[in-house]
């Protein structure tokens, strides 16, 4: 299945935030959206999640336009992790995780839950109050909840998308890497991942595709090698950036 953005624009008042973006995200592939602050990355993700409606253009999940899909159907086709993680009352981490499970038997929930807890290294956190956790820990819990939403779909081969908005913003290096590794692992289960990232090295290391945005437009898109060139990046970020291929690590490294 593809998540298709077709000539989409969005503005707040007269200020354009996203301009004429066309792109198709595919399941089985991980795509990073990068770009400077205010480039429209988060807005693009909000348009995809349905939180915002495009001013122009259409977004399709498979062949069906997102706007005509009931919320229940959408929930079966995509999970979203936003930057907001304010929970007013003192819920336990375990209760937050359970909220991600939207359908399916108790037995499958327990299996999926223990798998997610193990993968996201939440063993020590599940019995704690969500509000007592640090920002990074809360993000790990929200990520795990989104994973559970994906796992609660009826069949493992059913297509699904995971949308992540700066999921690693407050995490330490180890958990940052772990989150992206786990995200890559679920790609096998006919899932597509779209992630807004600030760290160019993480984008270089984990993405199949990269979209580089600037002032609401897609400046470049394609495989990391095509998009991550020192010249384009220096231009977009208005600061000197060098990209080299690190032979020992076998991947691109970005220096700024």
């Amino acid at each position, binding site marked *: 299945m593809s998540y298709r953005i077709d000539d989409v624009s969005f503005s707040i008042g007269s200020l354009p935030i996203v301009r004429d973006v066309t792109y198709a995200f595919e399941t089985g592939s991980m795509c990073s959206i990068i770009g400077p602050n205010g480039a429209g990355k988060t807005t693009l993700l909000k348009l995809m*999640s349905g939180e915002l409606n495009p001013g122009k253009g259409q977004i399709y999940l498979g062949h069906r336009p997102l706007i005509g899909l009931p919320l229940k159907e*959408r929930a079966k086709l995509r999970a979203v992790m*936003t930057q907001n993680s304010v*929970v007013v*009352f*003192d*819920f336990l981490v375990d*209760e937050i995780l359970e*909220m*991600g499970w939207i359908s399916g038997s108790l037995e499958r929930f327990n299996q999926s839950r223990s798998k997610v807890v193990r993968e996201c290294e939440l063993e020590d956190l599940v019995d704690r109050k969500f509000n007592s956790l640090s920002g990074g820990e809360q993000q790990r819990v929200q990520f795990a909840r989104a994973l559970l939403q994906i796992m609660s779909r009826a069949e493992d081969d059913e297509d699904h998308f995971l949308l992540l908005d700066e999921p690693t913003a407050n995490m330490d290096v180890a958990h940052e890497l772990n989150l992206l590794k786990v995200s890559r692992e679920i790609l096998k289960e006919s899932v597509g991942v779209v992630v807004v990232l600030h760290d160019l090295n993480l984008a270089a290391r984990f993405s199949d595709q990269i979209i580089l945005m600037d002032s609401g437009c897609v400046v470049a898109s394609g495989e990391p090698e095509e998009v991550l060139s020192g010249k384009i990046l220096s231009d977009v970020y208005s600061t000197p950036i060098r990209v080299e291929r690190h032979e020992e690590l076998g991947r691109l490294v970005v220096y700024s």
Partner: protein
Amino acid sequence: MLALALVFGFSVGAVPFSLLSLMTGTASTLENTVFYDIRGPRVVLAAFVGASLAVSGASLQGLFRNPLADPGLIGVSSGGALGAIFVIVFGASLGLVDWFMPYALPVGAVLGSICVTLFLYAFASYFGQFSVVTILLVGIAVNALAGVGIGAFQYLADDGQLRSMVFWMMGSLGRATWITLLPAIVIMSICMVILIRYSRTLDLMQLGEHEAEFLGVDVTRVKRGVILASAAGVGAGVSICGIIGFIGLVVPHLVRLSLGPSHSTLIPGAALLGAALMILADLVARIMITPAEIPVSLVTSALGAPFFLWLIARSRPV
């Protein structure tokens, strides 16, 4: 949960018993009449009103994602009182058919509550997120406006009407008779059942409105349902026993402290504890200065207001 329910269930039952023995000492021939016609409906009403206020409070707190939402504080109760008083003053001149008259008061109160809640919601969402401050300030404004309305009606009212209005403002369970009780109890029960069925959705709402939508919750419909059900529940209560403050604020907090914030335990727990507390408050109101009685809202406010201050003090550092 079960243990707590049993304890509360017992105390709910225990109150009429202690009352009964209290009665036997003075006049045991009157015992039956007193129990079935005066104490009985009164205790049943107290239980339902307490439960309904607590459930509405819990649901509104969940919906507004704000622990300070209380039907009394944010003006839902005074809206109900305004509706009821409107019916008292103008009821006769509205030209309603006779059979409808007993229902006119509850209907007026329910409509008043619903109007206030809708206004509150529209106003708060127009300015984005509901912050604690916004909602309390709007509540003050709504209460003041309702006060103006009530004052205006007072000016228009005659002597008899005035007396029944004062009774509404103070809150009392003393007017309970089975006939006036039934319609309100039916409304309150329906509302509570509806709200209990929203408990899972209210849980998901705690992640944030958009986050709940991402999980398939039709947030707009939930908002409408919860607002209407809780306002109708409060309004129905107000129509028989006037404004009773703080039950809707205090009870959900106490339940959250013991059972956790999940609405599937919070709402039934609030119903049981609300009923128990209300019966006790009414008991205190009756026996403090026998044979006279003090308005029950004095008791609930005397307990609730310090609790409210404590809540504010506690939430400061966060």
